[in-house]
């Protein structure tokens, strides 16, 4: 009930033309191979926006361009109307665009609590203070614990991250990302390689954290895409093939062809 209510509020508050992130003619060429071709992406504020497409469609490359882990060959990226095309990755993160990675990106040999605390440390402004004790970071523990509680990891706070099962590492990654209170969260295949139960849990988690923020995610699991996304952009061979809500996209003959039916059947089966 509360989820659907949230959703309604969000849908209503999201003005049709209020775009948090737009790209224009975004292109990336690797020595003649065009990985991303003139993509014009428009992400509406407050939505969960899914980026899907067959393997090699350029989804992750697109993510890397948006967060400047790769330099675009042509095109522009605007966040909240500001041109961020030429900014550095860390700068973009500080603006409130925070990404996750395809392979779980935790700090494996730090504790779960420390993982989240790293993200919170930026706000403290003592990150260069090599003469201070790490005990000065304990003021952040409370906030870190509350973030861990949000993702259901409060019992694992003292565990070394590497010792946790995969699904929990992804949850930890989301907690770390949330610590920065990003306006726009970019999730790269958040449910990849997960068992059925974990997929369900992470899906609910994404739904939960999408309140008050925008999420752009690359996702392969059609169940997740159909279940929680408001808008879907389909990429194929580096270009936008179709865009719209799940029903529109799923009915698009070009999309069906690109996927050769496989993922569609799977989605229906679920």
């Amino acid at each position, binding site marked *: 009930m509360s989820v659907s209510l949230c959703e309604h509020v969000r849908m209503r508050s999201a003005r049709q033309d209020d775009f948090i992130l737009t790209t224009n003619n975004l292109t990336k060429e690797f020595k003649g191979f065009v990985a991303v071709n003139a993509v014009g992406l428009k992400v509406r504020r407050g939505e969960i926006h899914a980026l899907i497409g067959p393997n090699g469609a350029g989804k992750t490359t697109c993510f890397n361009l948006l967060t400047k882990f790769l330099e675009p060959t042509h095109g522009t990226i605007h966040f909240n109307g500001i041109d961020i095309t030429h900014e550095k990755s860390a700068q973009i993160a500080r603006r409130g665009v925070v*990404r996750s990675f395809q392979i779980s990106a935790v700090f494996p040999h730090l504790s779960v609590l420390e993982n989240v605390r790293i993200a919170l440390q*930026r706000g403290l402004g003592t990150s*260069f203070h090599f003469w201070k004790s790490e005990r000065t970071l304990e003021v952040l523990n409370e906030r870190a614990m509350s973030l861990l509680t949000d993702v259901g990891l409060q019992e694992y706070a003292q565990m070394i991250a590497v010792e946790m099962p995969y699904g929990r590492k992804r949850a930890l990654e989301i907690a770390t990302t949330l610590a920065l209170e990003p306006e726009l969260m970019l999730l790269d295949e958040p449910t990849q390689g997960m068992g059925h139960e974990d997929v369900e849990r992470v899906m609910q988690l994404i739904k939960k954290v999408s309140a008050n923020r925008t999420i752009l995610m690359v996702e392969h699991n059609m169940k997740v895409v159909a279940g929680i996304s408001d808008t879907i952009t389909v990429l194929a061979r580096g270009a936008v093939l179709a865009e719209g809500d799940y029903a529109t996209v799923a009915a698009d003959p070009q999309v069906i062809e690109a996927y050769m039916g496989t993922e569609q059947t799977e989605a229906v089966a679920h």
Partner: protein
Amino acid sequence: MKMPKIHFGYLTLFVALLFAPFIVYPVLMMKVMCFALFACAFNLLLGYTGLLSFGHAVFLGTGAYVTGHVLKEWGWPTELGLLAGTLSASVLGLVIGALAIRRQGIYFAMVTLALAQMVYFLFVQAPFTGGEDGLQGIPRGTLLGVVDLADDQSLYYFVLAICVGAFWLIHRTIHSPFGQILKAVRENEARVVSLGFDVAKYKLVAFVLSATLAGLAGATKVLVFKFATLTDAHWHTSGEVVLMTLLGGMGTAFGPVVGAGVIISLQSELADKVGSLVTVIMGGIFVVCVLAFRRGIVGEASALYQRITGR
């Protein structure tokens, strides 16, 4: 539970070091301490930031030459001489670091090696280093104009104080807010970037800190031996510090000290017995270390301890 035990261990060691010069030849002890400091400085970069610098000897050499020069030629007081050597290494660290951190992994190592070699050839040519002869007969001077450091025992305690102070600084750095970020960079650099940290700046600060402490080790070493030579800045020495750190245990606070102790004592024991074969023996130790105990002596020992006590 664990912390007091470690503190107790350090305290025991400190007391042992206080009495060591009555049993062991103090100059050998001081040499071990200087290299232990050098290896700890290097470990701050390799073990806690994940950066393999292959030109660290140049900072040791710079510290040694500058301190040697200002003490011998300009007659500066000992304390100022140490400071000059140390700060020169910081400045050089800033320059080399700023250039090298633009590259990663093996390229970082290669850039540091190349730049260090450039400085090395500068040392070969420059008149103030004495070229192949090096700087000889450098006066140790006095401490605050009171304690005569020409006496090996007095110098020993001075060197011990420097090393303990530097070791404390490294310990503090590792366990500081800054150290947390360094460890995160070592673990997953891309993730740290994605969290909005300018990783390059953190690496640079770590590099400069490491270079500074390596310079301090070189400057202190000059006081001990009263000479500075090209060996200090040679790439062999850069390789040796890698060996010391890996053998003792990379990324452990105390590993490099053990590594330096083992290597230096072996070298001084073996030098007059096997001659140049010592290089072969060092190589053999390196191979065994990499194949059999990758975590190094301290790393393996603490892993064993944890297994026995069941953590």
